[in-house]
């Protein structure tokens, strides 16, 4: 028995080897490179000098003024804060739209369900950049919204609603981009929900509202948590919607990092911000894991 057990352990290690290689090359490797880059001196022409330095991290909080003195610079902290607020709002709005949508889809017949889920995934077939450009046409000056408002006489010709290049425009872009990632996991947990529980709740005098609040919401919690992570985390690092729809006027974490690597040629600072972003994401996931634990025990019902 013992020998067999050891063999099993060995087999498992061998069998899992390809997985570790893939994870090593594609996940841990790049992260290590980033971590190393963030601890180097930056090179003005791109790349880094191989010399240890904490400059990248210091630059997040401090700035050097004309006299060579180091002073507190809140600009990047504000960017981090703004990113958090926007990502949270985008997550909340996605939930408000996505939860009823997922519920509606899950209550349809098998055929309709398949079509609707297919439609939810259709946007993924086109590049995100192009889809976000489409929003410029919708929101922009003389765009779809403004011209229909003018047509309906809500605003005068030549006036503008100033929809573009605002936090709202960014928010719309973020919600649009990541809404499917909210709908799909919630749908998945509603799909496997026992419909007899809904009948039981109705039988036990639940109104429609208490049916949703007391049964559907708690039972789809694993999906809701999954959906929130899938929306919140990429929103935190998003740069396409903020750049195109926010006009880059108000920087977000994602745009800041992208800017440091692509334009400002300050790799070590960009890498340092990326590491901070990673830390924030890990913190969020950690909190989430603690909430999730509460819901785990009934999920494994046999």
């Amino acid at each position, binding site marked *: 028995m013992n020998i067999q057990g050891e063999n099993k352990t060995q087999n498992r290690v061998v069998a899992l080897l390809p997985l570790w290689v893939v994870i090593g090359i594609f996940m841990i490797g790049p992260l290590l490179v980033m971590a190393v880059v963030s601890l180097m001196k930056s090179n003005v022409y791109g790349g880094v000098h191989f010399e240890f330095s904490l400059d990248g991290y210091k630059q997040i909080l401090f700035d050097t003024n004309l006299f060579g003195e180091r002073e507190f610079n809140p600009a990047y902290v504000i960017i981090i804060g703004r990113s958090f607020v926007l990502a949270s709002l985008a997550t909340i709005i996605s939930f408000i739209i996505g939860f009823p949508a997922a519920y509606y889809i899950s209550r349809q017949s098998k055929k309709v369900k398949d079509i609707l889920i297919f439609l939810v995934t259709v946007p993924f077939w086109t590049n995100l950049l192009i889809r976000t450009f489409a929003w410029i046409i919708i929101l922009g000056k003389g765009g779809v919204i403004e011209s229909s408002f003018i047509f309906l006489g809500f605003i005068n010709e030549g006036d503008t609603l100033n929809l573009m290049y605002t936090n709202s425009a960014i928010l719309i872009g973020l919600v649009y981009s990541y809404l499917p990632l909210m709908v799909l996991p919630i749908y998945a947990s509603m799909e496997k929900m*026992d419909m*007899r*529980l809904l*009948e*039981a*709740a*109705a*039988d*036990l*005098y*639940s*109104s429609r509202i*208490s049916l949703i609040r*007391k*049964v559907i919401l*708690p*039972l789809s*919690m694993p999906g809701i948590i999954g959906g929130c992570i899938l929306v919140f985390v990429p929103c935190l690092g998003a740069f396409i919607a903020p750049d195109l729809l926010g006009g880059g006027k108000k920087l977000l974490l994602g745009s800041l990092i992208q800017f440091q690597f692509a334009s400002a040629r300050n790799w070590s600072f960009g890498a340092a911000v990326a590491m901070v972003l990673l830390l924030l994401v890990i913190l969020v996931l950690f909190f989430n894991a603690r909430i999730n634990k509460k*819901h785990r*025990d*009934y999920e*494994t*019902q*046999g």
Partner: protein
Amino acid sequence: MNDKKINAIEIKNVTKVYGAGNSSVKALKGVDLTIYDNEFFTLLGPSGCGKTTLLRLIAGFEDITEGNIKLFNEEIISLPPNKRPVNTVFQHYALFPHLNIYENVAFALRRLNKNKDEIERRTNEVLKLVQMESFSKRKPNQLSGGQQQRVALARALAPEPKVLLLDEPLSSLDLKLRQAMRVELKNLQRDTGITFVFVTHDQEEALTMSDRIAVISNGEIQQIGKPEDIYENPNNQFVANFIGEVNLLSGICLKNGENGSCKLDTGHEIYLVIPQSVEEGEAITVFIRPERITINKSLSEKSLTSISGFTYVGNAAHVELLSNNQIINATLPIDRVKDFKKGDLIEIEFPKDHAQVINK
């Protein structure tokens, strides 16, 4: 029982059709049924016969296609399930997995906005009734099937429904537990005085617990009656076959009336009551329960009947008798089991009072 019966549920000409067009299925075909207050009423039938559909129509989970259902003289077919004063014990319990036992049982009381003291009093009361008060903090998945069953029962009883609907609640329990729960359910019904409508495909369950039984097949009611009526005087061959062991022997009517007689295909000539409507020489089917047949050792070597199969089942023995290439089943009482063995030549005594002509 009261002389004056109150109608708890009146089902009038109820039809239920699933789907539309060519693919539509008629689950119920014009069912008429009255269930009295305080009654343990069982809907019995094979799977797919429409018994669960009928229960779901009473609970409000399905829309009725045609007909009417009244609950204590009030029409309920237009009410959603949450507005009907009936509760259901589901086949697979359907306990809320995210709530503990106490909250599961208190669920309906909370939805009805009862006050705090009342909720606590009633919840503990029903938990005690099903002997689950010490489990109130557990989650459903921490309980065994039998325990979940009790909680499901307590949950449905908590809001004091006028009628309790039970959808094959014992089907997923093992035999011992099922037998124990039968007695408990019956006692519970007597003690609470609530009308129980019980759906099952298990004839033994139906016979042991019910005040009255409706046997359903193909969306139609075959017979309604007390367990002993249904067992002793089945309306037709389906009911006779579905409930218990049975002999359905074909033969020719020799003489009709009170002192009628007929010649069975087995070669036996027996005496029984044959309705006047049956003419002499007409083919008939005779119904006899195996335990009503008495067998004796044959004294002559020329007997036409022999024991072709012998199955010992502990408290009795089932014997298969072969006569004229026809099989007759009989049950031997325990004290006579050792007198017979396979291959014995025997004589059959047919009971006049317990043999009857039965319709198709």
